[in-house]
């Protein structure tokens, strides 16, 4: 049966599938109940599963995450929503001090299987704090997993894997492409492995590593450079932490060149880690310096400036040419 979903619908269906299967799964956060979420990601959940398992909370992110720690210890599998990634910071202490540490602190006696969902990224002409891409902050924290899908199919499979994961997962949703396109997706539950990247396009001239909404922009850039005879291999990282190093290392060994594309600021963005890993593992294969195409080291501008900030297909294409020419 046809089940064509966009990304936000895939998020929704993944939760429905898992809630049907597993009584322990509960969903809560700001406006996720009656309203169904400001992006409609949790729409119908309360109707389907009742107010006990799907509910609105008072406006307090630290409590949303902190109570989820308690719930998880007490046998539930909470999925909590941070309304926007830029509003996850009041919960930062709970995330770094407890979510990420409970297993290690207790040598595995208490664990906190939970998912923290947050729409992230720019390009939706939003107010301040609504365009954040701070995946690097969370990826520096041992004990967390950080997942970012880029297609409806991946979204569903990865979110289900995140819900089933025995460890806490930050599940970051590229809101710019929430409704960008639909894809045929199985109606029933399925899992995609966390920690596995995907080769989106095969190529031999250069490796491009990216994730989230940028995947599509990289694909556009790829179309441009292909016309000039450059064939990029595009890798969608999908899991930022822990990273699938093998997939991009193998690719770079083949191409000798690498570009990392992300929206976040350059300094200490995830690109920095990828460049470093490439250096460690494929140094002798490099024909040009691994290069980053990123947001600037500035605060994300209000909408009248954002077009400059997010790497455009043109900026990416130009960098591909430069690196290939190096």
């Amino acid at each position, binding site marked *: 049966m046809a089940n064509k979903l966009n990304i936000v619908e895939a998020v929704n269906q993944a939760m429905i599938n898992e809630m049907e299967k597993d009584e322990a799964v509960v969903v809560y956060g700001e406006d996720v109940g009656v309203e169904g979420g400001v992006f409609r990601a949790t729409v119908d959940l309360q109707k389907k599963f009742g107010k006990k398992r799907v509910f609105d909370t008072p406006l307090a992110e630290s409590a949303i995450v902190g109570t989820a720690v308690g719930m998880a210890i007490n046998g539930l599998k909470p999925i909590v929503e941070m309304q926007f990634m830029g509003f996850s910071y009041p919960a930062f202490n709970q995330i770094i001090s407890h979510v990420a540490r409970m297993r290690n602190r207790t040598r595995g006696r208490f664990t906190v299987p939970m998912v923290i969902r947050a729409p992230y990224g720019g390009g939706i002409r939003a107010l301040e704090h609504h365009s954040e891409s701070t995946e690097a902050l969370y990826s520096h924290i041992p004990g967390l997993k950080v997942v970012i899908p880029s297609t409806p199919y991946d979204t569903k499979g990865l979110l289900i894997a995140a819900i089933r994961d025995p460890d806490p997962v930050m599940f970051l949703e590229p809101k710019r492409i929430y409704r960008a396109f639909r894809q045929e997706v199985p109606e029933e539950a399925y899992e995609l492995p966390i920690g596995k990247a995907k080769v989106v396009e095969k190529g031999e001239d250069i490796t491009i590593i990216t994730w989230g909404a940028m995947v599509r922009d990289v694909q556009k850039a790829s179309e441009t450079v292909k016309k000039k005879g450059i064939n990029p291999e595009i890798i969608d990282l999908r899991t930022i932490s822990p990273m699938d190093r093998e997939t991009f290392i193998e690719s770079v060994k083949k191409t000798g060149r690498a570009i990392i594309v992300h929206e976040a600021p350059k300094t200490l963005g995830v690109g920095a880690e990828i460049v470093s890993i490439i250096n460690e593992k494929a140094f002798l294969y490099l024909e040009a310096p691994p290069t980053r195409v990123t947001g600037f080291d500035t605060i994300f501008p209000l909408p*009248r400036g954002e077009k400059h900030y997010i790497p455009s297909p043109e900026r990416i294409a130009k960098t591909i040419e430069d690196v290939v020419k190096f």
Partner: protein
Amino acid sequence: MRFEDYKPSEEKHYSILNSNGQIITEEDLLSFSEEELLYLYRTMLYTRIVDEKALSYQRQGRMLTYAPNIGQEAAQIGSAYAMEKEDWLVPAFRELGAWLIRGIPLKNIYLYWYGNEWGSYMPEGVKVLPVSVPIASQLQHATGIGMANNIKGENNVVVTYVGDGGTSQGDFHEALNFAAVFKAPVVFIIQNNQYAISVPRKEQTASETLAQKAIAYNMPGVLVDGNDIFAMYSATKEAIDKARKGEGPTLIEAFTYRLGAHTTSDDPTKYREDKEVEEWEKKDPILRFKKYLQSKEILTEEWEKNTQKEIEKEVVYTFEEIEDKSDTSIEDIFNYQYETMPPHLEEQLEQYKSFLEGGK
């Protein structure tokens, strides 16, 4: 008024002007000149028109997300009007009425909601902080400004706003606790507009009133009819006077209602009944004030019509002046990260400019 007479836990609302435009507690009505009354009324009208226009521009795709103010004019204008020029205003994000009466040019306000940082560049001497989006975080700044006043021996005060939803945040608690411990001259105004996006006030906290949260800090707390401009004015004035005399902070709960949507992206019919909205429309703060002014023969239909036209013209003119001429320049993205631009930012700026110019 005496705060002691309005114990928050008793759910007694402090009010002066009822929904029919009648004065119910004559002794509390502070005296205003006719001019002042018309100025207040004009500002309320102005606020509402700015709001309506923003909504219609937004619907036309000419403006970004916007958080409407309709219904909360008295809560904001009444309270902010009690401030002196040298006092500080620390808003959340829905304080249009307060901004306008505190002298922020409409151009700034529209520029901000149009998506340009220059909107938050306040004119010299206007002691108003910019929009603060992360809920309740601004309260800490208000307390800090007040603490600094005490340290410096200055006696201006701070008025700050937060929503009913904002009272659930840790920052609310910490800011009030610090303010009380350090006797900071701060007036905390909760605009209880009954909703935090879709979440109704009663699901936000089990406490009967929000004003009673003051007890946790040994701070006076008072519940005020937020649609009553006189009550909001006189409660705030009393709190400001106390603060200025060194008697510390006060918590005011303005009991009001958000007649519009949360923002232009929100559809309130999903979470509330039309009937509820209609009930509150009867309590409209502008209508009520108008009835009063009419009963006192201060306001004429003609004045109202002319004023309305005048305002509309100004509002349209202001918006069109900024429209399309307000793109952010590349330099503007880089210029304000630090006082002096560090080398890595200079490099990124140069690289990007040369990319745009088609160079390497």
